[in-house]
């Protein structure tokens, strides 16, 4: 029931922030309407970081505690993170074309490291299909999830460390947290979209976790059934 309420609140918040982002907030003086893409683009990128961070932390917890619930959380984070990374890339491409003149440039460190992040976690999801043994699968996935998370700070700080097309962080860089490089009406809308997307993320994480747990429990039951059948099939001595 609480999850349903969260889902309803998230749906309302995302719908409201979409209307605000598209129609209520004024267009940027320099970039015009194209700047409106910033709200879902940055929110998606933030949730990609959060999702993969959760996957890495859950992977560490699985390796430490050997509790398969952590693996279910890790899987939820990876799948949802892949979706938000794809959204961030798509939003960035749609914003880049009218502002930079190109959809994509491989020489840009932010774009390339983000594409790498997407590839790493798609690989993580594919890796999970290589074995039916839940514990072996969880261990392999945890190692890949932790190693792949190294790319998260590289993606985030790439705009500070190297030159490229992508602008530096609007509010996420250490010297700009209290002094954002954008008018407060834009920052407020961005924070509103971040909040709305984070609510949606919370709802999706809970639902994906529930699905992952149900799948593992069904796998375990099937494995026990197979063991029991094999035992009863053996001739009595």
């Amino acid at each position, binding site marked *: 029931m609480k999850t349903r309420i969260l889902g309803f609140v998230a749906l309302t918040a995302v719908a409201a922030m979409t209307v605000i982002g598209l129609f209520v907030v004024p267009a940027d003086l320099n970039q015009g309407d194209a700047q*409106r893409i910033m709200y879902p683009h940055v929110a998606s990128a933030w949730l990609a970081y959060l999702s993969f961070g959760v996957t890495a932390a859950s992977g560490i917890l699985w390796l430490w505690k050997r509790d398969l619930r952590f693996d279910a959380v890790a899987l939820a984070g990876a799948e949802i993170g892949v979706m938000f990374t794809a959204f961030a890339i798509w939003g960035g491409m*749609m914003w880049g074309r*009218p502002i930079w003149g190109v959809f994509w440039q491989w020489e840009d460190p932010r774009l390339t490291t983000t594409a790498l992040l997407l590839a790493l976690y798609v690989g993580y999801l594919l890796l999970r299909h290589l074995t039916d043994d839940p514990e072996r699968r969880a261990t392999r996935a945890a190692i890949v999830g932790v190693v792949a998370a190294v790319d998260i700070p590289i993606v985030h700080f790439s705009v500070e460390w190297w030159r490229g097309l992508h602008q530096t962080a609007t509010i996420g860089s250490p010297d700009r947290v209290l002094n954002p490089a954008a008018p407060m009406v834009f920052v407020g809308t961005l924070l509103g979209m971040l909040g709305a997307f984070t609510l949606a993320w919370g709802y999706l994480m809970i*639902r994906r976790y529930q699905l992952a747990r149900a*799948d593992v429990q*069904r796998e375990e039951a099937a494995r026990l059934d197979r063991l029991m059948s094999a035992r009863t099939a053996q001739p009595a001595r």
Partner: protein
Amino acid sequence: MTDAGYVITAYAVIIGGLGLYTLLLWRRLRASRGRDDEAR
């Protein structure tokens, strides 16, 4: 395409994708619960 076209395309894919994923996840979860009920 105009700036507005890029904005609409970006929002349509992101918000639409979020909605579609939610719907598919909800259906997967319902199917999973249905299989559990059948097994019982």
